[in-house]
């Protein structure tokens, strides 16, 4: 399976779906989280929605997403996005709220303009929390993609596994399982590497 390239092919498909959804959720979630600090209306609007969305197992939404987006790439990417975005918003908000007021005061005293405050103070200071959120969300993205593929089929590692289980092809089943385990391990290691590189000052 490794030799004829099927495993690699399905791994790439799974990773593509997981990463696109994850990237989308970071791109949307971080600005929303920051805006919840800057504007009261945004806070009022998103706070209860995030609170409702956060404890929901995203996998229950799989049938809805099959209905809306079919069983191709889009459905999986959108579900990954929905399941990661609440985590990212919550952790960004938490980070931006816990910025040391001393930083903000001293920046203000030294005359930092409001626009620069966001990029120079709030964003870097809430970075550790955002990374926490990403560390939580990344495995979620892989799991969601995997289960979606298991349920709906249509290529990817999850499909490979459930297909193998249906025909009692143990070697194929275990190879898919092993591939997910290796992906999970590598992602876990690499994100903590990236974290320690970027957050050197922390």
């Amino acid at each position: 399976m490794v030799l004829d390239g099927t495993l690699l092919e399905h791994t790439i498909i799974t990773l593509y779906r997981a990463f696109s959804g994850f990237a989308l959720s970071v791109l949307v979630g971080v600005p929303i989280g920051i805006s919840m600090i800057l504007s009261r209306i945004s806070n009022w609007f998103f706070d209860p929605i995030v609170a409702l969305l956060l404890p929901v197992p995203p996998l229950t939404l799989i049938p809805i997403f099959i209905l809306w987006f079919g069983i191709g790439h889009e459905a999986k990417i959108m579900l990954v996005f929905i399941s990661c975005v609440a985590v990212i918003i919550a952790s960004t908000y938490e980070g931006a709220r816990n910025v040391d007021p001393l930083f903000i005061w001293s920046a203000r005293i030294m005359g930092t303009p409001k626009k620069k405050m966001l990029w120079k103070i709030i964003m870097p200071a809430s970075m550790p929390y955002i990374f926490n959120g990403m560390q939580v969300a990344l495995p979620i993205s892989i799991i969601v993609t995997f289960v979606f593929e298991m349920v709906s089929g249509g290529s990817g590692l999850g499909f490979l596994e459930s297909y193998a289980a249906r025909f009692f092809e143990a070697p194929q089943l275990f190879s898919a399982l092993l591939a997910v385990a290796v992906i999970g391990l590598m992602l876990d290691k690499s994100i903590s590497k990236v974290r320690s590189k970027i957050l050197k000052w922390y």
Partner: protein
Amino acid sequence: MVQVAGVFYSFIKSFYRALPVFIVFGFWELITLLNLVSTALLPRFSSVIIKIIELLYSGILLQNISVSLYRAFSGLAIGILVGVILGFSMATKRHVERFFYPIITITFPIPKVALVPLIIVWLGVTDQAAIFIVFLGTLLPIIVNTYYGVLSVDKRLLWSALSLGTPPNNLFRKIIVPASLPYILNGIKIALPTAFIVVISAEFVASRAGVGYLISGYGALGLYDYMFAVILVFIILCFIVDRIVAILSKRLLKWHGG
């Protein structure tokens, strides 16, 4: 009179806080009412509510929810029992730690949901299969949190207890358990959603009862308003369970400052 006003005020306040959720639901009703979105893709919110009442009345919903909850909570209970014991023994006994630590680091990043087809091949489409997967999924966060909780017990607490003449047998019960309780509860807090996720996905893949079975069954039959009804009820259920755990852990850890 003052009390009534206070109750009224707090009701208004909580309604104001939850208002955005109602706005989203209202928006949902509106776009389906105006036929902006086909009701084949998104059933009307009001019809979903009617279906919820219908399902509650016929008892199908409660029956399947109780099946899922039974699986989730029994798996979680076994996971907590085994996980706490293993975590404590890992933190206190060198041999146990040396044996389990590498196993845990290797198995931690595996998505436990990926084991669903495998376990179903082993145990069949049974309650035991679902419970076993939930057990596996909840075990690791609880072990890890208990382990670090015990390791991070403040040494000064132990020293002062010893110097005040606490017998070493009581040390465990009086100091180590309460001091690591916040960590253990945190592990349970992480494990609880995991239990729900694992149960639902196990029921999606293969099951004859439960919420996941109900959702995928209605989806397969094309009864989308029923499907949305079940999903909505389940979302609310998860929210309530999450709140209950938050309140409980706040109560239990009052001395710890939340």
